[in-house]
């Protein structure tokens, strides 16, 4: 089926990086079995694969953050092994890892000095990325995730690498910043330098990348050119035999729900959010479509008790509620799945403790834990989301996507009436994404109410019954999911009137 990379005739002199047969295991867990990768000079090369396929492990090996158990890496034709990231850096390889890497308690400037980053060139790239006037004496602790990612990127660019590796950088970025990252990547390509790009979003890969290497279960299973209708093949290669199943599970038409009102929001104001009203019913998935920063974050935060609204009301079961703490919202049955897993997870603790955290969230539950009952509830949730828990120890050892799933599993096990999903599929592979949307629909069908924001507009139709569109902090449109194709949503999300209305 797939052209094995060994017998494709790329042993040309144009290869900047040639890795073959790379293997890595962590105790009993095999993260990489046999990974091959060839990257040419002046190429943007995608690395694709399902959650846990080994993408992050591969880039960590290439950049010296991990040492391989076997295999070879050749750079410009010469065999190399990097024992540390600084050795790789000297050879011109640098990676922006999946999780932010600035030390939170040093200023940005101190971080730069610590890594011997040329400040002036850092500033220049920061300006390219749209952060021109950035104050270097800020503590990373106080910064939002997208900014942290861009700082990491600028720091990597500042050393003028030959090969830049980007591990899911766009997962935490809004659309406008993503396009800045793209133009920086293209600029590198134009200068004859190369980029390895990891993302779960096929659309990004086909828009940006020249070729894609696909990993499955730690093995390279093919090299594809995504632009020429290669997307289908990438999905097939990534998912292997399960691809068909997943495709069959995709979008089924949703009907409008007629359940009782779960939550009513009246004239809610908070930050950018400027007077939004709507009702959410049991049995429906209500989509929220918005470009980043239109008040959607504030809406979710108010409904989840993370922040207080400046004015307006949230009615649950017909009664006005005031949420001063997430605990209040959870009592009323509203639970939040945040987009940023670092915000929701206990990284040093086990999967089980992470999922079981809501079980002990009240004083009345401070007493002895019933281990059998807890284990059962956790196991059910883990199974339902197919979380890969071969490593049962700390959550930080799971792959990014599996960490995200742990955050979702917590509330499946913990119980809720209304689920507030804020971009729940960031960093989750296509197969799992469909699974999660399937799950969300199933939850609604069983009587829950779901409010879902996703930064990927085409996915609204996969999961929702109805959509509301936010623009400039106001609710500008509402439509049944059947009308909410990407075009319609994009128009509305940019504040344009719908086409029929013109």
């Amino acid at each position, binding site marked *: 089926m797939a052209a094995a990379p060994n017998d494709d005739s790329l042993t040309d002199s144009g290869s900047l990086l040639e890795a073959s047969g790379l293997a890595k295991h962590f105790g009993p867990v095999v993260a990489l079995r046999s990974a091959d990768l060839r990257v040419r000079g002046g190429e943007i090369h995608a690395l694709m694969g399902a959650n846990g396929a080994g993408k992050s492990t591969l880039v960590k090996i290439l950049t010296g953050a991990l*040492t391989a158990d076997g295999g070879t890496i050749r750079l410009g034709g010469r065999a190399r092994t990097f024992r540390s990231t600084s050795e790789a850096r000297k050879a011109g390889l640098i990676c922006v890892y999946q999780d932010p890497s600035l030390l939170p308690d040093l200023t940005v400037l101190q971080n730069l000095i610590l890594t011997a980053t040329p400040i002036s060139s850092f500033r220049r790239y920061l300006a390219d990325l749209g952060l021109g006037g950035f104050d270097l004496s800020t503590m990373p602790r106080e910064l939002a995730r997208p900014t942290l990612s861009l700082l990491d990127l600028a720091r990597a660019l500042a050393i003028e690498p030959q090969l830049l590796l980007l591990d899911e950088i766009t997962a935490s970025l809004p659309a406008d910043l993503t396009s800045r990252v793209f133009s920086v990547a293209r600029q590198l390509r134009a200068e004859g330098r190369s980029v390895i790009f990891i993302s779960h979003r096929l659309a990004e890969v086909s828009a940006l990348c020249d070729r894609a290497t696909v990993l499955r279960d730690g093995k390279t299973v093919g090299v594809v050119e995504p632009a020429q209708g290669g997307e289908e093949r990438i999905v097939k290669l990534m998912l292997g035999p399960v691809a068909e199943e997943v495709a069959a599970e995709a979008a089924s038409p949703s009907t409008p729900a007629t359940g009782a009102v779960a939550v009513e929001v009246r004239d809610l104001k908070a930050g950018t959010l400027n007077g939004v009203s709507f009702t959410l019913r049991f049995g429906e998935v209500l989509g929220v479509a918005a470009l980043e920063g239109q008040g959607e974050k504030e809406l979710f935060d108010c409904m989840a008790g993370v922040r207080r609204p400046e004015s307006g009301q949230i009615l649950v079961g017909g009664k006005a509620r005031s949420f001063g703490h997430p605990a209040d919202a959870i009592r009323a049955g509203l639970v939040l799945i945040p987009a940023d897993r670092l915000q929701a997870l206990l990284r040093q603790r086990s999967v089980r403790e992470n999922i079981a955290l809501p079980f002990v969230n009240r004083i009345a539950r401070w007493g002895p834990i019933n281990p059998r009952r807890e284990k059962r509830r956790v196991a059910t949730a883990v199974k339902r989301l197919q979380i890969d828990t071969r490593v049962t120890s700390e959550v930080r050892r799971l792959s990014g996507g599996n960490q995200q799933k742990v955050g979702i599993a917590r509330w499946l096990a913990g119980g809720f009436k209304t689920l507030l999903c804020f971009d729940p599929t960031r960093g989750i592979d296509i197969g799992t994404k469909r699974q999660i949307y399937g799950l969300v629909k199933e939850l609604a069908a069983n009587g829950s109410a779901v409010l879902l924001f996703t930064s990927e507009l085409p996915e609204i139709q996969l999961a929702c019954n109805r959509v509301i569109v936010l623009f400039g902090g106001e609710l500008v449109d509402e439509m049944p999911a059947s009308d909410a194709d990407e075009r319609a949503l994009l128009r509305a999300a940019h504040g344009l009137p719908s086409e029929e209305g013109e």
Partner: protein
Amino acid sequence: MSSRAAATARIVQQNSIIVLIALLVALAGLIEVIRPGAVNANWVSNILEFAAPLGILAAGQTLVVITGGIDLSVANVATAAAYIMASQAPFGVTRGIVAGLLVGVVVGLVNGVGVAVFRVQPLIMTLAMGLVVTGTLNVYSQAAVRSVPGVPAVIHTLGSGTVLEYVPVSLFLWAVLAAVLIIGLRGTGFGRLLYALGDNQEATRLAGVRGWQVLLTNYMACGLLSAVAGIVLAGTVNAADLSLANILLLPSVAAVVIGGTSIFGGSGSYSGTAVGALILTVLNSVLTLLDVPDAVKQVLYGAIIVLLAAAYTRVLGRD
């Protein structure tokens, strides 16, 4: 990290208690080499007797460090509790003990309110409280107490009595408290929340936990344990002076660190701390045997803490 080193790391990680116990045995071996015949039942009995108050003091410290905090008032609280217990004992031993324990709970409450409600840095809050406690105790001793109070017989027995000749009475109390802590940390909701808060306060909040309730209770528990430790120590040395437990502040932190609890919170265990307390006591015994002056001892303690902390980061890959 090569896979061999990774494998070693895993073994050490899963059995860090065993490594610590091996270290303990090695130190005892060292004593036996320096002075053959020194390690006997009597010596073991003595070590346990002196380790018990430190172990109890470090128990409270462990609880606080797991949440990512630190309590620098434990030693002052222990001293004050013992002193007040002794000075109140003439009006009834029970009254004395209750008064002593109350000191711990009240100071813990204030620490807890400061840290959990007003969000003062634990280091600053507890350092300040320690000074307040010591100052208040001095005022109290000048105003209300005529002579250095004696330690009641029951407490003396608790601190230095033995059963079957060699088993210290205080070991029973320590064992019970240790069991409660070890089981409680692992198997109760409260224990879970301590680790959760130490790992990620924001995540814990999002899961619906009101962190201040947990922290407040926890600082009170730490105060109470410190008071117990002070009272036991007064029994062990058969005196309750104004600086009784003050030298135990650093060892209480050292025992926690040696025991493998992360100083940044989120992981650790009391069993590690308990062995840490034993190691420190034996180490002290080695140094005393070698006639090492106190100042040098302090330097060695410091060096050992740094070395072990570095070793933990290395071997366990903590970040």
